[in-house]
């Protein structure tokens, strides 16, 4: 047949190596330069702007590395921080998993009947709008001050983007595609399984990546308020702040953000594996 993409493919292969190297350089050099600038500014504030007796407000980066990351033993040492990181990871993981289950279930339900969508949506928006601080006392009444409450906070914080994006995705299949399924007498379940669900994947992953980051915030915020049982990063941050342990405080903040970025990258990777072959939406970020 006449209109094959062969010539385009050959052309793009020759420039492939060059453009990949350029893309890699573009991904590495600017963030590296900006990172160096931030660290330079950080040193400047610690050593030049702050006098020695006020330096606890922002400890310099090397102190954070030596006294935060490289100090393993004792209370507030790296081993305790890693345990807390693991505890918060578990809370975020369980919370996100449950939020995904609830979110997908509700989105599918809403996609199947406009009345269900109309009935639930205002309440979901309300739930999303409630500041988490305002319902902390209620959560502690109902679920105590341990792990369960932390997971509940996590779910409340990360649920909304999953529902909204999945619902949007389920409704995104083109009219013509629906007509095809109608013409061939597809059942509701077949339409959901073979058309609406796959069509929803790109939007669903966009929501999941947002929610993955939010679940880490939820785990740490939950831990901040509900401290019984295992000590998570939130509890550590609270303790370090009250004891003015600047190096350890900054270390746990950095660990929290590493967890957040890690979860985000994990979901980006899953997304690329799941839809990278066919969707234009897939990519690193």
């Amino acid at each position: 047949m006449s209109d094959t993409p062969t010539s385009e493919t050959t052309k793009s292969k020759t420039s492939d190596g060059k453009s990949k190297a350029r893309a890699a350089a573009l991904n590495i050099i600017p963030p590296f330069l900006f990172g160096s600038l931030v660290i330079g500014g950080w040193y400047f504030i610690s050593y030049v702007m702050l006098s020695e007796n006020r330096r606890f407000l922002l400890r310099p980066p090397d102190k954070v590395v030596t006294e935060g990351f490289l100090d393993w033993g004792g209370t507030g040492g790296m081993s305790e921080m890693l345990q807390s990181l693991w505890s918060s990871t578990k809370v975020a993981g369980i919370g996100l998993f449950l939020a995904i289950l609830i979110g997908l279930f509700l989105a599918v339900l809403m996609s199947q009947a406009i009345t269900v969508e109309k009935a639930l949506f205002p309440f979901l928006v309300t739930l999303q709008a409630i500041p988490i601080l305002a319902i902390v006392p209620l959560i502690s009444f109902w679920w105590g001050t341990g792990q369960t409450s932390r997971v509940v906070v996590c779910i409340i914080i990360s649920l909304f983007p999953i529902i909204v994006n999945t619902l949007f995705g389920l409704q995104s299949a083109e009219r013509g595609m629906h007509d095809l399924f109608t013409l061939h007498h597809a059942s509701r379940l077949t339409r959901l399984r073979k058309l609406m669900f796959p069509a929803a994947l790109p939007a669903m992953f966009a929501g999941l990546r947002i929610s993955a980051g939010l679940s880490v915030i939820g785990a740490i915020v939950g831990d901040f308020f509900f401290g019984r049982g295992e000590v998570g990063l939130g509890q550590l941050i609270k303790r370090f702040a009250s004891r003015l342990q600047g190096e350890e405080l900054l270390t746990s903040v950095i660990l929290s953000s590493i967890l957040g970025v890690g979860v985000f990258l994990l979901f980006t990777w899953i997304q690329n594996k799941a839809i990278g072959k066919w969707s234009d939406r897939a990519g690193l970020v």
Partner: protein
Amino acid sequence: MTDSTNAALTFDDIGMIFPDGTETLQNISFSIKKGEFITVVGPSGCGKSTLLKIASGLLEPTAGSVDVDRDRLGYVFQDATLLPWRNVTQNIELFCELHGMPKEERRDLAQSAIELVGLSGFENHYPKSLSGGMKMRASLARTLTLKPPLFLFDEPFGAVDEITREHLNEETQQLFLQEGFAGLFITHSITEAVFMSTKVLVMSARPGNIVAEFDIPFDYPRKPELRFDAEFARICGEVSKELRGGHS
């Protein structure tokens, strides 16, 4: 015009008024037999696509009736409507899958349809890496797997370039001769209509009704050079004249 003996599709006095009050079709009556390829040309918005939707059962007419067997109806849309998450083979298997055909059987049918439309070698490609013409071929192949006795084409080649369009016209003609289906084709292109059809119907502006009918006398298979034939040009001119009349 409504001799419905052995007809694959018969429209009987079809009228269509949409809920917002727009009258799209008025007194449409004609039928298509096996071995006939009828093309409807008409100005934009005259209800050509609505007619196909009525034929397929996607829309119910507000007047008149349609006689058609909708079990194995072939419908080729304006867009290729390939599912982006399925590769070429999986897309072409879709209809067989929806009709509950076993995997082996549908794979065989898909493979022969792929060969028929010349997409061999692209079985594992996803739609995003196909050109517009190739997407349309995949869409045709998907419909061919059901071996439909009636094909409805809703301006399928409107979005491809002129040369690809001509190729696709020739290939569709070949499929028509090979498979012997009845074809109802919608287009804006007069050349396309005259080149492929046994009969061309001209529709007026909204509310659309049939204002002229042309039997196309050329024998099949029609060669590409036919487009430069004097008689061909004359018929195109006649159709164009009627179409202009329908516009005003």
